[in-house]
């Protein structure tokens, strides 16, 4: 039952913390862009969608 040693909840929390944050931010971005065009909400939602791209650039090239 090696799996239990490795897959303790604490590990899962650590592993999936950032993926969940990014997932929620992306989802909010996708949905909020549907609600308004050319206003504050749209800018906020575009920001949400740019965050994952920012993560890619930072972790791949700057870290």
């Amino acid at each position, binding site marked *: 039952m090696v799996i239990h040693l490795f897959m303790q909840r604490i590990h899962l929390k650590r592993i999936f913390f950032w993926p969940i944050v990014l997932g929620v931010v992306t989802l909010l971005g996708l949905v909020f862009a549907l609600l308004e065009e050319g206003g504050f909400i749209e800018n906020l939602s575009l920001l949400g969608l740019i965050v994952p791209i920012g993560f890619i650039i930072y972790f*791949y090239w700057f870290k």
Partner: protein
Amino acid sequence: MGSIKAWAWVHKWSSLVCTAFMLLLCLTGLPLIFSHEINHWLGNETEAPDMLPSTALVSMDAVLLSAKALYPERVVQYIFRDVDENKTWTVSLGKTVVSEDDIKYVTVDARTAKVLNEPNFSDGFMYVMYKLHVDLFAGLPGMLFLGLMGLLLVVAILSGVVLYAPFMRRLAFGEIRKNRTENLKRLDTHNFLGIVTLVWALTVGFTGVINAWAELIIKYWQVDQMAEMTLPYKNLPPPTNYASIQAGIDAAKALEPEMVLGFIAFPGTAYSSQHHYGIFMRGNTPLTARLYKPVLVDAETAEVTDSRNVPWYITALLVSQPLHFGDYGGVVLKIIWLVLDIVTIVVLWTGLMLWWKKRNKYVPDIETQIRLSEAY
């Protein structure tokens, strides 16, 4: 580890089956994101002259007359335009009201009723990209096949998330081991890019699957609701004289004063009946501009006979379209779509390479693979 082994099997085979098609969809999707801009550069887009925004619109009957004057022997099927177009209308004319081939399109200025262009929607580079993306030039079977491949992609993504955990036990988020072997770098890149773009890829993948069913969903709606709405007219002889289409639009607008005209289906087409103008109204926000509400108008009297909101399955289809195309928020959203599309290509490619490089080697079971990947 038994279940991990099963997930690894699911991930491997669901990906392998769909990867070639997904690469095709990602590549053909790239120009389609910018189809509006590309058509503009290619000069295929109709440019209506600038006039004061307050310039009055001509009656739709005048628009219709201009288009019909070019093809007097043909019948009008639809009048439509893009969501973000407000200066022109495009009229489609077929040899019969139900013919699907050899359709002529006439774009007319909505303020002067002057014919501006006769666009050809079934020709050129963008048409090839579109057909490859939507149905592989194979009609409905092609669409459904690509829908099935999209479903496999969703399975591959979800199984990939499950596998992400054991591969990341000893790694920090975003850690890419660039200075070890090429294969480890590839593995880390695949895992990292895959998990970061997870929600976007799932959204575009799943809404693509819904779009693949569009034709069948719309057919079902026609049998289900359209038939019900036009039932009282079913056995009446076709009308002998037709009311003004502008009068029909005005009647629809009086019923839905908050909405604007989306498109018009003429009597006998799939979106109306022999006796009706199908006036499809829409809202004004990025979301509601894509949610149509049919108003059926008697083609003889220009009176509204029925109007009801579309059922949930049509709403699901209509909402899934902007979420798939990324065309609902201006050029920045399109660029985001472009970047994430390219990232998805990298995920597909690194995944394929991870499999390809070890296809002729002895491959230990998934547990040993995970341990080996950690042993550095």
